[in-house]
C-alpha cells in the first residue's frame, strides 16, 4: 500500500509540482505537510500558473522527488510483503474481496473458457503490484499476469516468492518500471488492468487514466480499489487505522489524495471508460476480514470498461481555465 506513494515518481509529472511547491515553502522534514500541499488539485493550479515561466523544466528529472527518508522506510518493508501477520496483513485479507470481484467480472465478460484454470488466456496488468500479493492468485487462476512497480526491491521480493512454484513462474512476470514507460511499448495489449490501492498514492490521475486507456484492449476492464474522500474515511481510514489501531503504518495515506467514486467515475468517463460497477468495502479490525457493504464511504472497488470506439476526450477541468492554456495542457497529458 504505502509503497505506492512512489507512484508519484512513476508518473513523473509530480516533479514539476513539488518543484513548484518547494520553491514556495521551505523543505520540511515533516513530509506530511509537503504532501498535503501537493494534492493534485493544488499542483494542477500551480502548474497552470507557472507553466509559462517554467515550461522548459516540465520534464525535470524524476529523482528530485525521491525522499531518502521515505525510501529508507519503504526498503525496510520490502521483505515483509509475505508476512501474513505483518504490516501487509490487511492487503492479504483484501484478496478475499478483490480476487472474486476481478474473477467474476472477467468471467461475465469473457465467459468460462476452461474449468479448473478459469482465467486462462487473459492478459492482466497489475499496476503497483508490490510483492505480488494480488498477482499470484490471478496467476493461479490461469491468467498471464504482468506486475509492475517502481520500487525494485518489491519486485525482487515478488519474483523470489513466485520462483518456487512452477505454475506461477510461467504465468506471472514482474518488472520494475513505471506505467508510462510500459504504455509506450504495450499499446492495447492487456485484457484487464488492476490498480488496487494505488490511486490514492498518485498525484496525477489524468496521466494514469490515459496510460490505462492506452494499454487496454478495446472492451478491456479496469479494476480499481481505493479510498473515498469523506470525513468518515478521514476518521476511520487515517485516524483510526493509522494512529489508533495501527492497521497500517502511520503516514501511509494522505487524505487529500483520496478520491470519491463520483470524481473517479467522471475522470474515467472523460478518458473513454464507462464505469460498470462500484461497490463499497469495509475492513473489520476485530476479525481482520474485509466485507462488501452498501456504502462507499470508506473503501470501494470500481470496475470500468474501455469503450470500443475512441471518444473525443472532454476535459471537465479545462472549462475553468483560460482558452490558450488548453492546448499545451492537453498535448502534455498525451505525450
Amino acid at each position, binding site marked *: 500500500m504505502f509503497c505506492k506513494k512512489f507512484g508519484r515518481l512513476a508518473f513523473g509529472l509530480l516533479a514539476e509540482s513539488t518543484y513548484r511547491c518547494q520553491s514556495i515553502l521551505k523543505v520540511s522534514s515533516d513530509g506530511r505537510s509537503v504532501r498535503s500541499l501537493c494534492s493534485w488539485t493544488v499542483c494542477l493550479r500551480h502548474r497552470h500558473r507557472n507553466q509559462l515561466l517554467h515550461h522548459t523544466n516540465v520534464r525535470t528529472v524524476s529523482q528530485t522527488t*525521491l525522499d*531518502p527518508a521515505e525510501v*529508507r522506510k519503504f526498503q525496510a518493508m520490502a521483505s515483509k510483503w*509475505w508476512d501474513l501477520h505483518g504490516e501487509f496483513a490487511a492487503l492479504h485479507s483484501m484478496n478475499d474481496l478483490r480476487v472474486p470481484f476481478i474473477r467474476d467480472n472477467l468471467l461475465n465478460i469473457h465467459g468460462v473458457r476452461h474449468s479448473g*484454470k478459469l482465467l486462462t488466456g487473459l492478459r492482466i496488468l497489475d499496476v503497483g503490484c508490490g510483492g505480488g500479493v494480488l498477482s499470484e492468485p490471478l496467476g493461479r487462476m490461469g491468467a498471464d499476469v504482468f506486475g509492475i512497480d517502481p520500487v525494485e526491491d518489491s519486485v525482487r521480493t515478488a519474483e*523470489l516468492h513466485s*520462483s*518456487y512454484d512452477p505454475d506461477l513462474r510461467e504465468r506471472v512476470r514482474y518488472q520494475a518500471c513505471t506505467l508510462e514507460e510500459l504504455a509506450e511499448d504495450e499499446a492495447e495489449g492487456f485484457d484487464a488492468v488492476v490498480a488496487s490501492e494505488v490511486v490514492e498514492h498518485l498525484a496525477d490521475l489524468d496521466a494514469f487514466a490515459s496510460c490505462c486507456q492506452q494499454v487496454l484492449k478495446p472492451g478491456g476492464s479496469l479494476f480499481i480499489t481505493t479510498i473515498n474522500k469523506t470525513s468518515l474515511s478521514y476518521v476511520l481510514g487515517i485516524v483510526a487505522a493509522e494512529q489508533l489501531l495501527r492497521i497500517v503504518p502511520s503516514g501511509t495515506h494522505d487524505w487529500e489524495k483520496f478520491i470519491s467514486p463520483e470524481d473517479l467515475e467522471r475522470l474515467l468517463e472523460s478518458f473513454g471508460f464507462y464505469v460498470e460497477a462500484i461497490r463499497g468495502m469495509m475492513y473489520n479490525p476485530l476479525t481482520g476480514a474485509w466485507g462488501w457493504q452498501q456504502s462507499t464511504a470508506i473503501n470501494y472497488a470500481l470496475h470500468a470498461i474501455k469503450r470500443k470506439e475512441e471518444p473525443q476526450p472532454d476535459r471537465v477541468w479545462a472549462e475553468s481555465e483560460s482558452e490558450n492554456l488548453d492546448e499545451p495542457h492537453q498535448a502534455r497529458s498525451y505525450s
Partner: protein
Amino acid sequence: YTFTKVKLAVVGIGRQCVARRTLNAARAVSRGFASSELEEESSTSENELYDIIISGGGMVGTAMACSLGLDPNLLEKKILLLEAGHKKVMDRVPETYSTRVSSISPGSATLLSGLGAWDHIVNMRCKPYNKMQVWDACSDALITFDKENLQDEMAYIVENDVIVASLTKQLQSLSDHVEVQYRTKVVKYTWPRPYHMAESIPWVQVTLANGKTLHTKLLIGADGPNSMVRREAGIPTVKWNYDQSAVVAVLHLSEPTENNVAWQRFLPTGPIAMLPLSDTASSLVWSTSHQHAEELLQLDEESFLDAINSAFWSNENHSELVETAGSVFRTALSVLMPDSGSARQLPPSVSGIGPKSRVMFPLGMGHATEYIRHRVVLIGDAAHRVHPLAGQGANLGFGDVAFLTQVLSQAAFNGKDLGAMQHLLEYETERQRHNLPMMAAIDLMKRLYSTNAAPMVLLRTFGLQATNMLPPLKEQIMAYASK
C-alpha cells in the same frame, strides 16, 4: 540557485543509500537463489512438486483422494496418494466375510455415492439395518432407535475391505491427475517455515523409504491413530488407552431371520454388539478387558458361542433394588406418556463362527488438539480416535473428507495457495465443533456403563428409560449421528 544544489546533493546521498541497500538486498536474494537452485538440483526436478499429497490409503485417505480428484475446481492440481500396503482389488467378493466392519451413516453414504463408490459397494456387499436396540445388563432399561415406519434404512453395515476396494476402483478412473503409489513408506517429513525468506524451500518435503524426496504444497495426514504426520509435526494429542480390547468375529446365526436390527448390550466389562451382515451372518464386536479378551480368544468354539449367547441373554447382573426401582420408574413414565416405550426383544442366537475369524485389537481415545499446521492437515483417525461403541469412527472421518474438499475447492476457486492457514483454520474450527461433542458423548457413555455400582446403574437406568420415552430427543440423537 543554491537551494537546488543542496537538494540535489541530499538526494544524491539518498540515492547512494538506496543503492547500497539494494545491493545488500540483491546479495541476499542471489544467495537465496543460489542455495535454492542447489537444493532444487540435488533433490528433485519440477515433476516432483505436487499440489496435494495424501499420506495413508485407508478408507478415509482413499475417499479423500477420490473426492479431490472429482472436484471441478481442482482439476488442474497434481494429487498423490501414498499407501504403505498393497493395492486392494476385489473383482469378486470373497465368500467369507471379513471381520472388520463399519457402520456407515446416511451422511457418509451420501458422500460415497457422490464419489461413485456406493454403487460398487452395493453391488459387492452391504447390509442396511432399520433398527437399533441398546440395553443394559444391570437393569431392564433399554432404548431403541428406528425411523418412523421401519421401512427406511437407518444405516449400513459394510466391511472395511469392500469400502476400500470400491474407492480404489473409482480412483482408477481418475488416474490422469490423481496418482497413487502403493508399497510406499515415508521415513521423514520436513516442514517449511511459515513465510519463507530467501534460503528455504517453502514446500513440505516428504522423504520416502526408497530415497526419493517429494515436495508438496499441502500434506494431508490420513495415516491412522498412530499418525506419523501428527507425531512429526509435533501436534500435541490428548489420548488415553481404555483398558479394553475389542474382540471381533463373524457369527453364523442358528436360523435365518430378517436380520435388520443392530444389537448392543452394555455389560459391566464393556459393550457387546451384534451387527447384521446378512440373513444368516452377523458381526461381533465385543469390547472387554484385555484379560477377558485374551481368554475369549483362547476358548474353543462352543464355549465361545456360549459366552456370547449368555452375554446377550442372561440377567445375572440384575439386582433386586435396581429391578424394583426400574419398574417403578417405567410405570410412572407410562402414566405420563402411555404410548411410548418398547418391549425388550432378544437378539438371535448364534451357532457358529466364521473360520479363523477371531481377532482382538486394543481400544483407546485420541484427539489431536490441532488438526492443522501450515501446509499440513489431519483427517480421520489421525485427528480423532473413538471407541467403537457408537459406530461413529468411520463416519467422523468421512465428514472430515467432505468438509475439507469443500474448503479446498473454494480456496482453489479463489486462486489461493492451498496450504495457506486461513482456509485450513475454517476446516479445523468446523470439524472440531462437530467432532468434540460426539467424542465427549461416546467417552461419557463408555465410562457411565463401565460400572455396576448401584447409584450409577440407577442413574443410567432412569436416563435411558426417559430418553426412550421421548421420540423428539431420539430423533435429535439419530440426526446428529447420521451426519
